[in-house]
């Protein structure tokens, strides 16, 4: 029995030590974060209250039990008492928990009411979950981008040392101002996801076809990280969330930069790149967006098709089909639509790269304006080619 007691004391003392010493949390991360919003702090308080209620009840129940285990044992010659009921005590231990629970229900209800009040938001952001990335649309600002994992496969497969933000780093974080009420409209494009940032105590399911609301108001600037919290298929563990909270001033600066960049990108639509520039940019884009499935060498895997010497990528008449599947995706397959994720210049580069790398040799070099025209008309340089891809026209 001593071992048993030791075990329990060990567990209990670990918990207590952790909870009583705030420094200890940071080191071991064994408790819920207090977070950086009023709601997250309220939730933390609720969590601690109910925890201590449980500890108190547990201590009482277990002390009585261990009292019996130590003193009312046969080996000590203890004779059993014959009682087997006591109406009064049974009423007490049914009624008392009711009172405790009722007391608990009041602050919980209050917090819940606050969480549900999405009125009077300063800023609306739409969050869309995709397998396996997030899309953020700033509804007032005409800003929209995708945010996906950037941790390299080398780190995941142990070929390179894992960084501090392993699996919690993205190409572009959601940037928001502090001190403003931000309303999130959460939905999904394929399966159910769940958008969760522990520091905001905000978790909302993203459900295809439906829109969910949530809100937050962040107190402190900083970078906050979270993850998808609903099993959404193969890479569920690889779709992190990163939120950068800035002061209002910095946020507005960021907005300006973002809008300038958008203008610059529009200029790119008129840009003519040389063949080398196209291939170089194309490889860069390919490695960031395509290589996860099609691999760096273009050969794909058992699930994802190879792009090397494939009809789609290596036949002249397939150029519009190729542009089409990269731009609009292939619904019903894992091939996503990149038309909204990448600007025309990047699309042109990556398609050019795929058509001229790894021994593919179409010598077709696509410019941003070709993509713009294609998006408007479905044609490549005014040729009606879409759907003609049979690999009939040989180079």
């Amino acid at each position, binding site marked *: 029995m001593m071992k048993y007691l030791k075990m329990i004391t060990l567990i209990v003392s670990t918990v207590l030590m952790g909870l009583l010493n705030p420094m200890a949390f940071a080191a071991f991360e064994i408790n819920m974060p207090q977070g950086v919003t009023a709601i997250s702090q309220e939730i933390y308080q609720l969590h601690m209250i109910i925890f201590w209620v449980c500890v108190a009840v547990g201590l009482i129940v277990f002390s009585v039990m261990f009292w019996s285990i130590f003193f009312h044992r046969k080996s000590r010659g203890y004779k059993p008492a014959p009682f087997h009921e006591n109406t009064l005590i049974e009423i007490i231990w049914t009624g008392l928990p009711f009172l405790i629970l009722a007391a608990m229900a009041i602050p919980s209800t209050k917090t819940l009411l606050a969480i549900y009040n999405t*009125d009077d938001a300063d800023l609306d952001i739409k969050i869309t979950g*995709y397998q396996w990335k997030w899309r953020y649309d700033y509804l007032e600002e005409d800003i929209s981008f995708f945010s996906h994992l950037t941790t390299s496969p080398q780190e995941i497969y142990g070929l390179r040392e894992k960084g501090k933000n392993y699996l919690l780093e993205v190409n572009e974080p959601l940037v928001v101002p502090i001190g403003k009420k931000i309303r999130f409209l959460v*939905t999904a494009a394929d399966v159910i996801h769940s958008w969760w940032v522990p520091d905001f105590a905000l978790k909302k399911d993203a459900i295809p076809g*439906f*829109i969910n609301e949530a809100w937050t108001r962040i107190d402190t600037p900083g970078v906050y990280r979270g993850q998808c919290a609903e099993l959404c298929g193969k890479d569920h563990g690889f779709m992190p969330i990163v939120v950068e909270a800035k002061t209002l001033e910095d946020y507005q600066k960021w907005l300006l930069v973002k809008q300038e960049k958008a203008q610059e990108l529009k200029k790119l639509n008129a840009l003519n790149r040389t063949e080398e520039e196209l291939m170089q940019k194309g490889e860069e884009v390919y490695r960031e967006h395509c290589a996860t499935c099609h691999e760096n060498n273009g050969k794909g895997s058992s699930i994802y098709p190879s792009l090397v010497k494939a009809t789609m990528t290596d036949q002249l008449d397939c150029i519009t089909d190729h542009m*089409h599947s990269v731009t609009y995706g292939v619904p019903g397959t894992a091939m996503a639509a990149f038309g909204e994720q990448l600007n025309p210049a990047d699309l042109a580069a990556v398609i050019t790269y795929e058509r001229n790398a790894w021994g593919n040799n179409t010598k077709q070099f696509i410019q941003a304006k070709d993509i713009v025209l294609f*998006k408007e*008309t479905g044609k490549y340089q005014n040729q009606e080619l879409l759907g003609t891809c049979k690999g009939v026209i040989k180079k």
Partner: protein
Amino acid sequence: MRPLFQIKNATTRSLLSGLLISIGMFGFGFLLVPIYDIFCKYTGLNGKPDQNPYLYQAEDIIVDSSREITIQFLATNNASINWDFKPTLHKLKVHPGHIASLAFYVRNPNNKDMVGQAIPSVSPFDATDFVHKTECFCFLSQPLGAFQEKIMPLKIIIDSELPKRIKKITLSYTLFDITDMETKGTAVRAQLEKEGMIHDL
């Protein structure tokens, strides 16, 4: 002990009632589907609005010009479809009782005919019952030929009974590919077009 035949009868009764309960509960499982729909309709759960045109009498409509409601429009493509799909206006301010008209643009960039269906969702949930649509592209499936584009109209009246605290309503439409599902829908649509209830622009 009771006579054997009595036990046997009682056992048969237990067996039959057990089977009956389980068959009943199997049925109840399916019954939960309509129950849920009714429940959603009355509570606005999931922001699932009424999928029928709102038939209004002009005299029923009370315009509340003391307040202005912002309506936001969202368009989302489900992964099953790759059309261009967006509202022509991102938001609109309107007095409850006034008709708000706008449209969504849609284009099929594929070289095949397809049928899309927009699924509406309203946020906040408790606004759902106060958003009346007299005309909506979401009432019907939307067939589009290869490369065809279209402006799809939407007419809304916000009920003046809308709770005072709500100042902003989000109307979200998610577009799904229902080409495979669609057989009956097109026939219905043709009928409605004949009756002049759908206007292609």
